[in-house]
């Protein structure tokens, strides 16, 4: 596994006289480590003095290796074995620690020559492991089977008795439960009518169906309709059964499976009598913050943090605004910071704050005797906030009071503690967004998760193949993982209901997509006027598909719409209801569709979700994404006034302005006529 999978950086820069960086290496519960080997690549400064410049590799505080940083051969690699006993089933610390000097006597600890880069791109870790036996306990669902420390590839096969809309609903609930337990890890779902060996399987159906697919395996049937079993002949993989005599019982079991998160009952099965779900409100979800509400840093995941030394690092907290959030640019995000800092800091020390990578404010730490701030107020302009995830980071810059060449630097007293009862107050916001917006979709599934349980969403499956069903499960599970809420309200359908007032997700091969959907999509113009073979309005910018290559991708005129190995995702306004959206996920055939659905889990694909139409090239290498703006704009949300009227005013803005001007002229004429009458009355014949 490349080390870049463990962080968002491709290179770790270690600067100064001493510096370190720690990676978190996850080792899931399910793994039994046999062997691990680390290959590390680094480059150091040619100004370093080898006698006093060392790179240490530490694993969970155990020093694995020390390397002298050679100025004459600044590029180096390290290959080392990590003792299996050190790899614990948790997030393990892999630390790169350097001490760097350029003279024997004394070095300026902040000298720019003191640097070493660890090249994560060229570094990797190899782990050989065996899967542990799956304990036949329901709690293992939450604790072991679907563990975010499993960096994949993670696969789950859903075995359905039939692919009716009802069972698809159960499958979506179950798949979302799995995806939520993986937290942020991709997980690929397949759908079949029988068990898939070498994978965990979730079987949804009647007991008869279960006995049918297990026939001949010799395995015993579970005692209850919600159970964890071993896969026949494979104790390392689980078979999770979600069943029941009626749909209502199956639904109860599916919901229980999806939400189960506690260790009890410590048994392999459960008879679910009842399940009470919490009320769901609009714009609820993982890390979502509410307007005009104060949150402590602890609420947002940042616990009390002490920064120490010359390179104290940074701390960050993240929170999410709904994808359609519109923060007034003139409103401020208010921070009330509680901190204490030590004596002996130079007056140019400071705690800097960045919101979404932009400098947002700074607290001077300029009292040499040390001090404490209680409720230090910082106002951050609302324009720095954005819909979706926001990251507020704190970077301490601590300088020793006494510094200079050949002066013994005392850095132990460079301390600042940021308390987690510091607060951030979210400004007021409105919900208003220009649609279509695939970036909003990929943020948290907007608009389908406006009600996070998908209650206003219908998933239209254009055929009954396993690939289409699996693609739908992957998409729904992916959205649920982002929104943090299971899709208990979702509807599946194989028939298009033209009277629907819901948002619609259409999934299936293009030749099976209903004509009415296509007519409402940006592809409609091509259908009406046989296309000459390329996407409209294509510019030559960066990631956008180019004219000369587009015609091999899209040939709607000949009905060979998309070539094998490509996925088309498009969002547009529902042809059946204004302000409602349709997400069309389609491909040349079922195989490409499923491959595409798997690809949608990948961060590289998700980062390409912009504008309103995208094409994912599922070639042999990493998938590539091409996007463009193809459809008409529309608006949705809830700003002051009458929403429907606002919708028309925005959608037909120029026409609205024309109507406004005509209204003004008409009103002026009416007033003029009335004034003339008044004048006649007042002045008579004068």
């Amino acid at each position, binding site marked *: 596994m490349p080390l870049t999978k463990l962080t968002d950086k491709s290179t770790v820069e270690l600067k100064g006289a001493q510096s370190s960086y720690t990676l978190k290496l996850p080792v899931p519960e399910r793994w039994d480590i046999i062997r691990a080997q680390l290959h590390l690549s680094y480059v150091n400064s040619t100004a370093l003095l080898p006698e006093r410049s060392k790179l240490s590799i530490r694993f969970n505080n155990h020093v694995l290796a020390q390397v002298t940083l050679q100025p004459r051969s600044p590029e180096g690699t390290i290959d080392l074995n990590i003792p299996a006993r050190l790899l614990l089933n948790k997030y393990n610390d892999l630390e790169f620690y350097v001490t760097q000097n350029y003279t024997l006597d004394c070095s300026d600890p902040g000298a720019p020559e003191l640097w070493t880069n660890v090249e994560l791109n060229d570094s990797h870790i190899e782990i050989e492991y065996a899967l542990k036996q799956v304990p036949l306990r329901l709690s293992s669902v939450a604790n072991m089977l679907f563990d975010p420390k499993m960096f994949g590839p993670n696969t789950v096969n859903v075995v359905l008795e039939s692919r009716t809309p009802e069972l698809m609903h159960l499958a979506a609930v179950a798949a979302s439960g799995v995806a939520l337990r993986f937290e942020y890890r991709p997980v690929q779902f397949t759908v079949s009518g029988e068990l898939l060996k070498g994978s965990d399987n979730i079987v949804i159906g009647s007991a008869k169906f279960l006995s049918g697919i297990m026939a001949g395996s010799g395995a015993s049937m579970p005692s209850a309709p919600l159970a964890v079993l071993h896969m026949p002949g494979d104790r390392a993989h689980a078979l999770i059964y979600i069943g029941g005599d009626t749909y209502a019982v199956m639904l109860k079991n599916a919901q229980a499976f999806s939400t189960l998160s506690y260790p009890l009952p410590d048994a392999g099965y459960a008879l679910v009598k009842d399940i009470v779900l919490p009320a769901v409100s609009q714009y609820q979800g993982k890390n979502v913050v509410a307007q005009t509400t104060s949150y402590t840093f602890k609420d947002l995941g940042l616990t009390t943090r002490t920064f120490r030394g010359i390179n104290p690092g940074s701390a960050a907290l993240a929170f999410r605004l709904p994808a359609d959030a519109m923060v007034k640019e003139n409103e401020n995000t208010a921070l009330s910071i509680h901190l204490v800092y030590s004596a002996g800091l130079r007056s140019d020390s400071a705690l800097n704050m960045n919101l979404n990578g932009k400098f947002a*404010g700074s607290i001077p730490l300029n009292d040499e005797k040390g001090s404490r701030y209680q409720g230090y107020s910082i106002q951050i302009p609302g324009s720095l906030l954005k819909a979706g995830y926001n990251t507020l980071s704190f970077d301490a810059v601590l300088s020793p009071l006494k510094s200079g060449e050949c002066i013994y630097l005392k850095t132990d007293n460079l301390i600042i503690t940021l308390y987690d009862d510091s607060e951030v107050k979210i400004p007021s916001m409105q919900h208003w967004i*220009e649609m279509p917006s695939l970036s909003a979709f990929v943020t948290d599934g907007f608009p389908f998760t406006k009600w996070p349980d998908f209650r206003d969403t219908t998933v239209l499956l254009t055929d009954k193949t396993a690939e289409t069903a699996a693609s739908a499960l992957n998409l729904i599970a992916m959205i649920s993982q982002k929104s943090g809420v299971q899709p208990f309200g979702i509807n599946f359908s194989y028939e298009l209901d033209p009277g629907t007032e819901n948002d619609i997700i259409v999934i299936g091969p293009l030749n099976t997509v209903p004509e009415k959907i296509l007519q409402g999509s940006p592809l409609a113009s091509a259908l009406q006027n046989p296309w000459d073979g390329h996407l409209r309005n294509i510019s030559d910018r960066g990631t956008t598909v180019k004219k000369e290559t587009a015609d091999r991708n899209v040939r709607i005129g000949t009905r060979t719409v998309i070539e094998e190995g490509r996925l088309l995702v498009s969002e547009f306004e529902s042809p059946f209801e204004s302000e409602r959206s349709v997400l069309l996920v389609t491909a040349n055939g079922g195989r490409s569709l499923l491959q595409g659905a798997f690809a949608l889990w990948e961060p590289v694909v998700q980062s390409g979700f912009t504008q309103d139409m995208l094409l994912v090239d599922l070639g042999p290498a990493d998938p590539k994404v091409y996007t463009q703006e193809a459809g008409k704009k529309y608006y949705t949300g809830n700003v002051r*006034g009458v929403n429907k009227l*606002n919708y028309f005013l925005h959608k037909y803005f120029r026409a609205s*302005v024309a109507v*406004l001007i005509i209204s003004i002229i008409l009103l002026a*004429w*009416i007033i003029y*006529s009335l*004034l003339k009458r008044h004048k006649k009355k007042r002045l008579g014949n004068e």
Partner: protein
Amino acid sequence: MTDNNSSNKQSYLLVCSGILLLTFIIYVSSVFFNFEQQVFLSWGMVLLALFIKTFIRNDQALKRIIIIFLCLFLTLRYWFFRTFDTLFFNTPMDIIFIAALYLAESYGILTYLLGVFVNIHPCERKLIKADLDDPALPTVDVFIPTYNEPAEIILTAATASINMKYPKDKLNVYILDDGGTVEKRNSPDPAAAEKARRRHEDLKAMASFLNIGYITRERNLHAKAGNITNALGSNTTGELTLILDCDHNPSRDLLVNTVAYFMKDEKLFLVQTPHFFINPDPIEKNLGTFREIPAEGELFFGAIQKGLDFWNSSFFCGSAAVIRRKYLEEIGGIATDTITEDAETSLMLHAKGYNSVYVDRPMICGLAPETFSDFILQHTRWATGMLQILLLKNPLFQKGLKFYQRLGYLNSCIYWLFGYARVIFMLAPMAYLFFGANVYNATISQVMTYAIPHMVAAIILTDYLYGRVRHTFVSELYETVQSFFVMPVLTRALLRPRSPKFMVTPKGTTLSSDFASPLAFPFYFLFFASVAAYPVALWRWHNNPLQQHGIIGCLIWVTFNFIMLLLCLGIVWEKRQIRTKHRIPVDKEAVLSAPFRGIKHNVRVFDISESGLGLTTEERLDLSPGDDILIDVADSYGNEYKFHMKITRAVPTDKGHLVGCEFLSTSDNTASDIIGFLYGDSEIFNRFWEKRRERSAGIWKGMGYLFIKGVTGTFNHFAGLSMQLYNYLTNKRRSYASETIPGEETQESAAGVVHCPVHNTDTINPDLVQSNRSGNTESAADQTN
């Protein structure tokens, strides 16, 4: 009947459609649009308004209303933005400043909307001349109330009144003397009593000489209002009453041009005419804008009264108005609950269902206050009085008024609250820069797409509606310069609405030298604070990078205020004013003859005053100072005058001479002729106004003009102060030297001392008037005590 029904039905339909459209427009003005849409909408509207204003030539009335609605849309949009998107607070101090600024802005927008309502369709009346031979012509009493004004001022007004064209048997002129009442004549202060007795005798003699009435009363109750009401019950019987301030000289045609309206409309109670001032007010004088831009009163008389007239709401302005006696008597005479008795009286009579008319032709010529202090005294009285009406007789709740009359009066009343708003506008950006107070929650892009389009639209609209009578930002100047003095007075009136007393505005004051007005202090403070705001802003810029938008906004704002302060400093530097007879520009043909030299030559008179006239000759004549000449000249009505004059100066020009000459008194009629020629011809006033209004400068030029005037005025102010300080120090040194060097004489110097106004002591005919001629600023409170 059927026609009436159909017309009513049409009106009903129009009103319903109008309400629907208005609702839609107001709704759209409140809707949120994104940045690009807002840019398109706001600046598109501005451009459309400009385009219509500049290029559309037909139907001016409809065009006017379209421009009004386009501009008001942007204003409404801005107000909705301010109300819904900017009012949030982080600290208690924010609440105070943000709320204060918001209220000030909302007040400004309300007065702007009311002003536009009033002026949406100003009444352009044709003059209706009365047939003086009509036996039904009503009898007219002319009342000239006086309190402490110099006798020669009263004499001029009385003479001009007698000169009015109207059947003599139907015209009676009365001097209503409140300076010589029994109470005054028996004052416990012997000097005051003697002064009152002398005044009483002088004015009685003057009345007798002019063959007009003299009325005084026992006690000085209710000041001017009481004086007039007393006259109504003192054997005066005229069906109509022309009320004139004693410094207001009527033209010959005043009654001819006003009486006919009463004969036409039985329910008419008032015909008001404009006030024309022959002298510059202190702002015009000190900034040097007289004859260059329209005077302060011209906005009111040239536009607002016409707008009010359309809504049957034009009101009595204390003078130059004809009132029907019987309606006045119905309400017990002139109203006395407030110190703006004129507007109050109109309000009461409008509430009784009677009508008023405004005739837009200046037919009196009066005197504006000469000093800034007098100007402020006059304006604070108006402000206080109108606030009293708002508090004691709120037009919104007066029974009998039509809705448009309520709005018209409301507009007139709340306008005077500008003092609060202006002070807030002046202090708000400084509060931000100096104390970091959050005054306005908006980013620069919001300012550019909401606030600036609104301001630009407001400038376009006000220039379009009032540009002829009020140049850009002159209103802001007049309001700013008054605000610091109006505000405390209004606050007192708000707390005790019945306490303010009538204060007479001194007229005919002269100033012996330049000096800083005693009211200059607030402007010094603000000037230096504004100057200091720039380095403070620079400091903030460096230390608060996230506030740079706000800092830029406030700096622009401070700069605008700074320009206003420059002008204010120019205004409070009182210019020397020794001329007692003010000149008015004319362009009249005349014949100059000097019989002893055999000269008879056509000349052009270019200005006239009570003391003389200026003329140009087209060829060089054998004239020199001291020569006696005769001038034959005719007024606009064809009345011919022959004046015996003496040349005071003769300056050769390219072709001829520029000649200044003064009147010589050769008969008892000379003064009457001079008054008749100077004040009798309303066409002179009319042309003067028209000419001044032709100089419309446009928005940018107008702003540049004001800036230059401001810089010049401030320079003059500080240069004058420096000179006075230098003189003072020099004198001090000399005085010290003379004290320390025995035998050296002490030198006196007029420089370095504070100069006080000197009141006019000139006379027209010294034989006619023998009185104590010093004009004092006395309070009518004294009268009532």
